[in-house]
């Protein structure tokens, strides 16, 4: 009897609604088939796909705070940076295996989030945003200039051949012959596609955790805080621990992303913590759709795509694309479009952002839902529309 209860309790821990399971399955399929569907878009190379997976995790984590509680943190890049530094130090001091590195990254960034969250969450609204921004800038300055023995400042923290790596030497794992050792997981080197699949699996897990949080009573409480915190307090609900928990979870997600960044590319630089990076994750979330599970992921992919692919298109590539047009027309097309690609990619992204905020406040996800709804309306009620039209006539 007892075991039965425990079992059902345990199974409930992993339980998801049918709808969520389907979403998760589709999501997993989409993520794992990235090398196939990204190929025509020119983005199917491991370096970028790893970034897609990692920044999606970052955005998912950010959305747990911003999407559910409505608290806009402007300093989330700090946790990403802390995670990266921790992971690289784990590579330097303990072992090149990524599992301890990522574990430490999550724990240490969680501790940072606890401290920063404890102080920042004493205020709400714009004051909270400013406080997180201030803390993040503080972390950035510390990493860039003050704590250079730990962070190596501008140059970035790199793994070197002569590092101690206590665990590796204890277990007798030899560093690779000659070159700088590379991160591995249980003996397999994490480079290229292997690195991508590791990130992809972690992303799917992170997505699942996010689904669970959204569906849980905890998530419900957070939504309650978003809609009316005062009312929550009057009903005898202590919101503080909930807020802090959301902040720490979100910081740990960022730390996980930072740890993975270091695992796939063992360098940690202070620029990862700049306020522009914190701003970027806000953009990702808003672009994709705040408060939805899948929205931030889409936003992260769109922004990373622009940053890496659009910025690489130059007039030469444009000329190739429009070579089929007559010469004069080709010139016009290339001149006009070249302002929006290459060094002009910020402009395109900015325009896209403005259009989305103005016309689709729910982000790209709302856009796709509207599109889907339109198609559905076209298919099913055709007959009724027809009848209405007839009646009208």
């Amino acid at each position, binding site marked *: 009897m007892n075991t039965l209860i425990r*079992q059902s309790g345990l*199974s*409930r821990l*992993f*339980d*998801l609604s049918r709808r969520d*399971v389907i979403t*998760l*399955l589709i999501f*997993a399929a989409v993520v*794992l*088939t990235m*090398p196939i569907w990204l190929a025509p878009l*020119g*983005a*199917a*190379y*491991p*370096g*970028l796909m790893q*970034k897609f997976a990692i920044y999606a995790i970052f955005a998912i984590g950010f959305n747990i705070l911003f999407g559910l509680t409505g608290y806009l943190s402007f300093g989330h890049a700090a946790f990403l940076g802390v995670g990266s530094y921790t992971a690289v130090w784990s590579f330097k001091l303990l072992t090149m295996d990524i599992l301890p590195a990522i574990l430490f990254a999550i724990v240490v960034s969680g501790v940072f989030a606890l401290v920063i969250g404890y102080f920042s969450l004493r205020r709400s609204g714009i004051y909270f945003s400013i406080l997180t921004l201030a803390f993040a800038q503080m972390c950035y*300055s510390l990493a*860039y*200039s003050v704590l250079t023995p730990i962070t*190596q*400042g*501008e*140059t*970035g923290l*790199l793994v070197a*051949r002569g590092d101690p790596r206590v665990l590796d030497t204890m277990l007798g794992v030899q560093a690779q*012959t*000659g*070159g*700088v050792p*590379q991160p591995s997981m249980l003996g397999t080197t994490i*480079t*290229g*596609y*292997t*690195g991508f*699949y590791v990130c*992809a*699996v972690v992303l*799917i897990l992170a997505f699942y955790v996010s689904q669970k949080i959204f569906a849980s009573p905890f998530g419900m409480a957070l939504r309650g805080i978003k809609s009316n915190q005062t009312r929550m307090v009057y009903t005898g609900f202590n919101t503080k621990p909930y807020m802090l928990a959301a902040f720490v979870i979100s910081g740990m997600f960022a730390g996980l992303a930072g740890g993975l960044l270091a695992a796939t*590319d063992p*360098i940690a*630089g202070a*620029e*990862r913590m700049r306020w522009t990076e914190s701003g970027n994750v806000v953009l990702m979330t808003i672009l994709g759709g705040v408060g939805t599970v899948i929205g931030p992921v889409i936003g992260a992919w769109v922004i990373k795509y622009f*940053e*890496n692919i659009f*910025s*690489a298109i*130059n007039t*030469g590539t444009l000329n190739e694309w429009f070579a089929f047009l007559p010469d004069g027309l080709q010139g016009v097309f290339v001149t006009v479009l070249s302002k929006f690609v*290459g*060094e002009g*990619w*910020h402009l395109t992204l900015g325009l896209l952002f403005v259009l989305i905020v103005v016309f689709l406040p729910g982000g790209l996800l709302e856009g796709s839902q509207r599109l889907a709804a339109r198609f559905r309306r076209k298919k099913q009620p055709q007959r009724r529309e027809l009848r209405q039209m007839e009646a009208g006539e």
Partner: protein
Amino acid sequence: MSKLVMNRRKLIRTLGIGGATALAAPSFFTRGAWAQQFCNSPEVSGKIIFGFNVPQTGSYAEEGMEQLNGYMLAVKHINGEGDGGLLNTLKPVALKGNGVLGRKVEFVTGDTQTNTDAARDGARRMIERDGAVMVTGSVTSGEAIAQQSLAQEMGVIYMSGLTHSNDTTGKDKRRYGFRHFFMAHQSGIAIAPFLAQEYGTDRRAYHLTADYTWGWTQEESIKAATEALGWETVATIRTPLGLGDYSQYLTPVLNSGADVLILNHYGHDMVNSLPQAVQFGLRDRQANGKNFEIVVPMFSELMAVGAGDAVRGIIGTSNWQWSLEDEGTKAFTKSYGEAYGAPPSQSAHTGYVQAILYADAVERAGTFYPPEVIKALEGFEFDGMGNGPTLYRAEDHQCMKEVLVVRGNENPASRFEVLDVIGKTPREEVTYDPAIFGGELGPYEPNQCA
């Protein structure tokens, strides 16, 4: 009910793992196929692709775009288009103006956003997607060091662009990274005799230093060089990067007893700090019975233009200047001027030269196989690239060549003539022992890119 749910979970897990292995499989096979070759071998792909990765947005975008112009010009000249530029003056030269090893060079570009992460992302894209056999370009030392360590991991040669920090060919040097540009330590050695000649050996210096790696290495190098002259260092103050208003740092200078202000700033920092120091009336002041002077050890044309009238009479060092009189410089200034309608900056020059030197090394080695190309570059002695006789030193991959000492033009005739070359410190004097900065180059054997 609970059973069904468990099954679903299992299903997901199995699907996930199965999918991962199925998709990973082809990449393992391709990796095996590559094993005989090195990363992005043009013999396999049939294409020679250079990756030009420079900041096109962000605080150093201007210098980055100049550098990109230099690279594109180099590709034209390597492929035998245009007037051939420095291929006519480089001695010894192996390139024939018909591409590299008889095949035309193509290129891809990227935006580093003056950000090390973005620089590495861009370089990875060039190597993994575009099949670049060589990556080049940088405007900060952070970018250069980040890309150079990536290059070592990937087994693709990286030719750095503008990077002045001692670390690039010092403690962070790599076998796959090469630097043509000069460095902070050489600036210190080069500028010292001119400072002694102009301002005497009895001076008290006050340093304002941009608070990051490059700033510190320069401060350290200049401090050592000026103290060797007999100067006294009053204070070294660190200023945060990207500050707009330096008045809080300039006020203490007035009463510090110093009579020289040394600005270890670059780019926007210098464009802000120098005019503010001049507006503060520092240069009109007398201190210790001498005229107060300002020194900017690392100068560039673009910065000088940005700082406006404030640069007049200010002494600094430079890697190269378009107004030099040698054949190489004249040829490059002419080609560049015809292509872009303005004289080139040192950023464009170093980029151009790096691309040519790499191509020439491949031609001499007769293969793109990186270890052979690296050996062709190591210890390569050449002339005619605008810097006099130059050696690509094997020990640290740093070019040994003369360093220019420049002064802000008092009466510029045009907006391009902002700097005057007042002297050259010969190569022998700026040559130093590579061991003083430590670091190790690492192995020759290339890694395989996945």
